[in-house]
Structures are given as structure tokens and as C-alpha cells.
């Protein structure tokens, strides 16, 4: 068996089209052979080295030095200095800044979620032990206050206050609910936590139960997450059989048990009063607050509802102390936030970052920029209740208050990256359409306002918009914000308002010039054949579903505008870029 003393990883981090990794690899091996080190050093082509657009990057292990923009001519000195002598070459060296910080996802991808012993092995349930054996409920709430943890579900209400209110109400029964009804398009942080580290959420719930004096808790998880439900159910059974749920947990006087309730997939059931109605077996519609659930919640009893991510933070807070937790983050937003970064981004997935990091760091340093290599246009945060943040605000530190100032919200953590090819009017229409679909219909501002706004947006994207429409959109949005019963209706207009705020010119282009600058709105597009470029191959004619391209291989082809359905299939099919899309 070969025993290597060093490993060299290499990768060309420029765009995939000009990937030189293989050439560089061959050269490196050759030079290594010349210095007769082939037996001692293994050279490996990596798939990703975590930095992007920095030329050829190499990493030497176990030295853990990284070089960027490496040229073929650098290879001999890398071999001589770094590999033979172990001396780093300062002029080439880069340090990858550790931008991520894992608190919520601390065990995700590390432990076996179906094995309770794995969880205990990474200090699982030790926070619960500390809480039950050494602390009073008041002290628990005090510690939560020190941590400064705010709800990760969207609104950012301080968790300790919710707990304190629920504790203060005298009642024979109280409840803890875990809100796992994650419904924002593109957001799946909670699913990953439930699937990857279910016990940490359970532990957080038991601690919450102890703090407010509850004996019973409910997991509310959407039925579209079958694997999460399965793993939570297994975790609850395992915890119960170990005496970590049930009567007299860990020999204390505290008893607490959990049950799972499935949501049928209505977006509005993520709203706490609708969620409670759904657990009670009623139709999932919200009711006016106050009274807040912490006073009058499930079955009319004081109830604390916390989001999955919020609960997953709790064991960590009690293991390390509230003060320690509060060291991370900004003045008003403590700890970390998990984002599900999707859309036109190179590396889509989950990132967990300390509050106060900039959007630019998330998009470019962690996720590698846009997948198309094109200019980033905007970042959408907060799902259908949020808004878009244009590229010029990428350097804003991310926290609850800053995002709100920009007209968006932190929300549950969906982050959708958009590039030049995305039409913001179309995006606003998509999100509003989502809320219109999901509106429960109980209150008229949301039911009627949403539908009317959607009609206006559809009109604009079809080239039938009027300039007064912009003022009308704003007027309806204002009424919805003021008069809707729950957060769904109050925030449904946010994507429209924020796109008008930052991209009014794009709306006007649609309305006045009947053009979609990013060619996304198909009704506004027109296709023509550039005759000089056309090779008369006939592919476009074959693809056209409307028979709108008459002609022959001898005479060439033209697109009949009155027959064209603007599907864009000819544009996609043409190998010679001879079709002009306007």
C-alpha cells in the first residue's frame, strides 16, 4: 500500500467552460516525477475547493496551505519550497475566511439522526440534564433573555418574552408547539434540521416545556415532509424509551411528552393561530390577536409556539450559556441564521452564518456567485412575505432590522438569487399568485385585494398595463397591510411593493413600451429570424407547435407574427443563434 506523506489537491476555479484542471494536473505530475517525489506525494483533482474565480487553486495537506492563481511556472517552486521544505510561498497564499458558523446545524451531517446514542455522544440531552437538575424555570427564562434569541420563524419576536408571558398565566394545562409548517417557496432549513438532527429540536421543546410549566407538546409538521415526520417519530419513541420524555424525566419531578400532528399543506397554517386551529381539528384559519397564544392558545390554554430553528438553538444556549450565545451577531439580532440559498446561484444549499454578515459574503464567498456568471440583479428574502433587495445593497449586514429597513424581512430563511435574466414584475406576480392561492379567504382585504392586485400584474406582463396601475397597486397594498386579519394578508403585497420601490423603471418599461427588459414575459416577446445568420436548416419549423414558420430549405424561413404563440421553442432550437428575441 502506498503511503504518502503529502497530498496536493488542485482545481481550476474559473468558469467551467475554461477548466484547466486536467492540464495543470498533468503538468504537476510531470514536474513531480522530475524531482522524484511521485512516491511520496499524491496529487488529486478536486471538484470544489471552496473559493471561486481565482484561477488554479491548490491545497497542500497536511500543511493546510492554499495557493490561488497558480501558474504552470509556479509549480517548481511549490515543489521545492512547500512540498520538500514545508515553507509556504507567501505571494501565492490565500486564507479561506471561515464565514460559516454552525450552531443550529451543528450536528446535521455529522451524526446519525436515527441513533439517539449518536446525539448523546455530541453532548445531546446534557443541556436538558443541566436545566432539570440545576435550574429553576425562572432561571431558564433569565438565561434565554441573556442569549437574546429571537424567533426564527419570521417575525423575530424575542423567545424569552413568549416563554415569560406563558409562564405568567396561571392555568391547569399549558402547551409547547413546534412550528414545522415550513411553506415559503425555496425554503427548507427546517426540513433539514428535522431530518438531520431531530433530537436537538425535541430537547429544545422539553426545555421550553419546563420553562413555562407545560406537560405536553406538539410537533406540527407538514405532511409533505414524510422523512422528517418519520425521523421525528422515531426520535420521540427513542427518547421516550430512554426516559427522556414521559414521567419524571431523568429522575426529576418534571414530566413532559410529545405528539406529532401533520399539516395538510396549507401555507396559512404556519401562522400561529391558524396552526392552533388546525391542531384542534378545526379548519386552519387565523383569528384576531390579542389574545396571543401565550395567553390563550391551544384548547384555550397558554401556549408557546416556536419555530424548528429556534428550538434547535436552545440546547446549545444552555450548554454554552446565554452570554456565550449573545457574543455572536449584531446588537439587536443574536446568534446565527440558516438560509436556504437557491435560484441562480452556483452552490445552492443551506448556509449558516452569524447575524451581521453581508449578503455579498453569503452569495459570493460562500455560494460562489451566480450560476450563470451573469450579473446578480437582486436577492429575494423572506418568501412571499418578504421583498427583493437589489444588487446595490449587497453590502448591508443581514439582521432583522436592516432587512426590514430595506423593505424585505428576514423571514424563515429562504434566499433566492436572481440574475439579469429574471424579470422582477414576473417575480412579484409569482409571489403574489402564491399568496392568492394560499389565502384562506376569511377576511376580504386579503381575499379580494390579493386577487385584484394579481389581475393588475397579469395585465402589465401582458402589455395591457396602464400607468395608473402603479398607484393602484400601492393603494390596494396599503389597504391589505392595514386591514388583513393575519400576517399572510398583511405581508402578501410586500414583494410587489419592494419591486416597485427598486425596479419602477422595469414596471414602466412593461407599461409604456410594452417590453420586458429581461425577455421573461412571453406575451411581450417577439421572435424574428435574422436572415443573414440563417442556415436554412429547418429546425425552427420542426419545433414550432403553431405552424407559424412557413418556408423551405431552399427559400428559407420567416416567422408569421400573427400566428406566433411566443413559446420560444424556435429560439431554443436554433443552433446558429439566428433567431432574435426582443
Amino acid at each position: 500500500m502506498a503511503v504518502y506523506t503529502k497530498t496536493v489537491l488542485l482545481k481550476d476555479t474559473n468558469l467551467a467552460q475554461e477548466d484547466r484542471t486536467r492540464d495543470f494536473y498533468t503538468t504537476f505530475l510531470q514536474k513531480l516525477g522530475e524531482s522524484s517525489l511521485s512516491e511520496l506525494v499524491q496529487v488529486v483533482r478536486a471538484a470544489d475547493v471552496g473559493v471561486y474565480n481565482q484561477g488554479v487553486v491548490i491545497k497542500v495537506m497536511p500543511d493546510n496551505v492554499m495557493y490561488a492563481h497558480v501558474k504552470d511556472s509556479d509549480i517548481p517552486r511549490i515543489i521545492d519550497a512547500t512540498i520538500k521544505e514545508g515553507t509556504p510561498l507567501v505571494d501565492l497564499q490565500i486564507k479561506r475566511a471561515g464565514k460559516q458558523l454552525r450552531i443550529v446545524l451543528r450536528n446535521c451531517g455529522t451524526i446519525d439522526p436515527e441513533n439517539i446514542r449518536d446525539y448523546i455522544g455530541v453532548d445531546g440531552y446534557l443541556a436538558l440534564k443541566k436545566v432539570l437538575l440545576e435550574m429553576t424555570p425562572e432561571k431558564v427564562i433569565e438565561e434565554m433573555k441573556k442569549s437574546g434569541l429571537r424567533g426564527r420563524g419570521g417575525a423575530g419576536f424575542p423567545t424569552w418574552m413568549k416563554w415569560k408571558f406563558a409562564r405568567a398565566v396561571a392555568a391547569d394545562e399549558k402547551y409547547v408547539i413546534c412550528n414545522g409548517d415550513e411553506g415559503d417557496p425555496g425554503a427548507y432549513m427546517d426540513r433539514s434540521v428535522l431530518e438531520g438532527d431531530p433530537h436537538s429540536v425535541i430537547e429544545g421543546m422539553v426545555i421550553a416545556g419546563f420553562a413555562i410549566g407545560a406537560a405536553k407538546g406538539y410537533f406540527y409538521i407538514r405532511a409533505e415532509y414524510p422523512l422528517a415526520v418519520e425521523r421525528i417519530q422515531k426520535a420521540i419513541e427513542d427518547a421516550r424509551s430512554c426516559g427522556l420524555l414521559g414521567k419524571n424525566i431523568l429522575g426529576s419531578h418534571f414530566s413532559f411528552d410529545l405528539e406529532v400532528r401533520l399539516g395538510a399543506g396549507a401555507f396559512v397554517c404556519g401562522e400561529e393561530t391558524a396552526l392552533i386551529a388546525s391542531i384542534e381539528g378545526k379548519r386552519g384559519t387565523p383569528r384576531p390577536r390579542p389574545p396571543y397564544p401565550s395567553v390563550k392558545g391551544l384548547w384555550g390554554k397558554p401556549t408557546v409556539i416556536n419555530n424548528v430553528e429556534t428550538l434547535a438553538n436552545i440546547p446549545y444556549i444552555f450548554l454554552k450559556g446565554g452570554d456565550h450565545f449573545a457574543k455572536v451577531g449584531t446588537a439587536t439580532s443574536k446568534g446565527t441564521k440558516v438560509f436556504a440559498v437557491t435560484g441562480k446561484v452556483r452552490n445552492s444549499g443551506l448556509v449558516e452564518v452569524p447575524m451581521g454578515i453581508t449578503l455579498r459574503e453569503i452569495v459570493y464567498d460562500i455560494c460562489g456567485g451566480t450560476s450563470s456568471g451573469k450579473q446578480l440583479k437582486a436577492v429575494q428574502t423572506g418568501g412571499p412575505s418578504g421583498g427583493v433587495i437589489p444588487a446595490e445593497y449587497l453590502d448591508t449586514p443581514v439582521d432583522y432590522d436592516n432587512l426590514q429597513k430595506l423593505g424585505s424581512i428576514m423571514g424563515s430563511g429562504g434566499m433566492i438569487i436572481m440574475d439579469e435574466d429574471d424579470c422582477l414584475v414576473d417575480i412579484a406576480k409569482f409571489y403574489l399568485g402564491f399568496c392568492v392561492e394560499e389565502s384562506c379567504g376569511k377576511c376580504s382585504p386579503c381575499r379580494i385585494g390579493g386577487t385584484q392586485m394579481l389581475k393588475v400584474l397579469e395585465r402589465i406582463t401582458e402589455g395591457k398595463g396602464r400607468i395608473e396601475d402603479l398607484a393602484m397597486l400601492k393603494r390596494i397594498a396599503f389597504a391589505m397591510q392595514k386591514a388583513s386579519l393575519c400576517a399572510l394578508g398583511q405581508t402578501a403585497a410586500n414583494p410587489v411593493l419592494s419591486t416597485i420601490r427598486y425596479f419602477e423603471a422595469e414596471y414602466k418599461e412593461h407599461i409604456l413600451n410594452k417590453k420586458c427588459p429581461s425577455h421573461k414575459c412571453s406575451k411581450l416577446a417577439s421572435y424574428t429570424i435574422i436572415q443573414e445568420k440563417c442556415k436554412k436548416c429547418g429546425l425552427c419549423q420542426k419545433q414550432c407547435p403553431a405552424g407559424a414558420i412557413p418556408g423551405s430549405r431552399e427559400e428559407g424561413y420567416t416567422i408569421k407574427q400573427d400566428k406566433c404563440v411566443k413559446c420560444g421553442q424556435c429560439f431554443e432550437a436554433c443552433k446558429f443563434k439566428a433567431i432574435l428575441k426582443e
Partner: protein
Amino acid sequence: MDTLTPQDLEKINSEAKKASSDWIKVGMSTCGIAAGADEVLQTLKDEVKKRNVAIDIKKCGCVGMCYAEPLVEVKIDGLPPITYGRVNKEIAMKIVEKHVCGKMLVNDSILEVEAKG
């Protein structure tokens, strides 16, 4: 499992921290399974059995690099933990053959990124 006392918790915890054997972890959350982690896990198990290697194969959750699922992480004595991305059946076989049995890393699949913070 029997009811645990606070002492039992401490005991399991310290035992787990001492254990340091070789392992292979496969990301088996929805994102991983959707990308084919089931087949990868089965291939790894079959290969290890075929070659009679003693190594723990575990399932774990999603580490966040959903763009590169299925993910396989390998820790064997003498090498740092290595994460492979976009693993398929062929790469899984190579991982056992080259990495686990020969301590040689597999080309074109390693993700050397700081995902775990």
C-alpha cells in the same frame, strides 16, 4: 433501551468521544436521497462486504451542500476526513477500492469546502 439516569448520559457521552474508528458517512436527507444516496449507500455496503473491510458505514443528515448531493464523507486512519460530492455508483466503488483500501484519494469528486464552519 432502559431508562437513562443522568450518570448514564455522561457515560454514553464520554464513551462516544473516546471512540475513534474509521467511518464512512452518507448524507441521507431528502436532498441526498433525491439525488440517489440510497444506491450509493447500498453500493458502499456491498463493496465493503465484498472486500471484507472493517469500516463503519453510517447515514447522516444534510450538511448543507445540497448542490453536490449525494455526499459521502470518509475518515480513515492517516488521512483527514474527506468529503466526496455528486457520488454515483462508480465513484462509490472507487471510494472503497482506492480510498478505503489503498489510502489514495479519488480524482474529480472531492469537495474541499468549509461547510462545517
